[in-house]
C-alpha cells in the first residue's frame, strides 16, 4: 500500500518537475544565462545530497531523469517532437562539485544561432 502510494506520488512529481524545469529554462534564457552552445545544468546540491544518501551507481538513473526532463523541456519550448534529429549527449563531470552537461551537436547550435540572428 505504501509502495503504491510512493510510486504514484513520484510519478506525479516527475511530471510537475518537467513543467517547473521548462519554466526555469525559459527564465534562464531570458537572463541571457546559457553559454553559447552548451546548456549547463548545475545541480550541485541535488547530486551531492543524493550521493550522500544513495550510492553513486544511481547516477545513470539521474541521467535518465534529466534526459526525460530534456525531452519535456524541448517539447514544451518548441512544441515539436523533433527529438530524433536532436543529437545531444548528457554527461556528468565532477570537479569542485558536480555539473551535468547536456551538449548539443554542432549542427543544432548552428541552426539555433541562425534562428537567433533572424
Amino acid at each position: 500500500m505504501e509502495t503504491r502510494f510512493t510510486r504514484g506520488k513520484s510519478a506525479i512529481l516527475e511530471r510537475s518537475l518537467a513543467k517547473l524545469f521548462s519554466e526555469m529554462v525559459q527564465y534562464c534564457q531570458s537572463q541571457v544565462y546559457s553559454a553559447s552552445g552548451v546548456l549547463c545544468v548545475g545541480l550541485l546540491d541535488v547530486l551531492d545530497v543524493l550521493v550522500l544518501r544513495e550510492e553513486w551507481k544511481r547516477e545513470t538513473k539521474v541521467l535518465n531523469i534529466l534526459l526525460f526532463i530534456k525531452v519535456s523541456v524541448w517539447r514544451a519550448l518548441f512544441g515539436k517532437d523533433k527529438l530524433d534529429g536532436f543529437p545531444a549527449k548528457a554527461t556528468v563531470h565532477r570537479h569542485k562539485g558536480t555539473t551535468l552537461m547536456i551538449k548539443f551537436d554542432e549542427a543544432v547550435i548552428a541552426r539555433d544561432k541562425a534562428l537567433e540572428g533572424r
Partner: protein
Amino acid sequence: MSRQSNRTTDGKKMNSELFTLTYGALVTQLCKDYENDEEVNKQLDKMGYNIGVRLIEDFLARSSIGRCQDFRETADVIAKVAFKMYLGITPSVTNWSPAGDELSLILESNPLVDFVELPDNHSSLVYSNLLCGVLRGALEMVQMAVDVKFAQDTLRGDNVTEIRMKFIKRMEENLPAGDE
C-alpha cells in the same frame, strides 16, 4: 523480492527529492539574481503565472472536469483534483467568507518545502509563492480573476500553511456581436 521493490521505491523517491531540490535551486538562483525578498516573491508569482496559464489546458484535458457552476465548486476542484494531480496532496477548504468570495486552502504538507529552512536574512521570502501564481494564471484562463496569497507558512514559524484565495470578478469572454 521485497528488497527489489525497496530499490524501486528508493529510485522513485529520488524523483520527489529531485522535484523539491530543483525548486530550491530555482529560489536560490532568484535570491542571487534579485537583491531583496519582495522582488523574488514577485518573480516567483510571475513564473507561477506562466506555468498556470499552460497548466490549465493540461488539467482540463486530463481531468475531464466540466465548467464549474460557482466559486465553491471551483475551490473544491482545485483542492481535491488539481492539487492531487500535480502535487499529490489534498488541501482542505475552509474559512469561507460570509459573502462566499474568499476561502482558505490549508496544506498539511507541501512537497516544495521538504527539508527546507529559511535563513534569518530572508524573513520576508514567500518560498512557495510560485503556487499563488499558478492558481492565478490557471483561473484567469477560465475567466476568473482571483487574488491569491499565503496567509500562513510553516517555513516562517506558523503551525500550518494557509493559502488565502479571493474571487475578484468574472472576466468577460470576448463574444462576437450578436451572440447571447
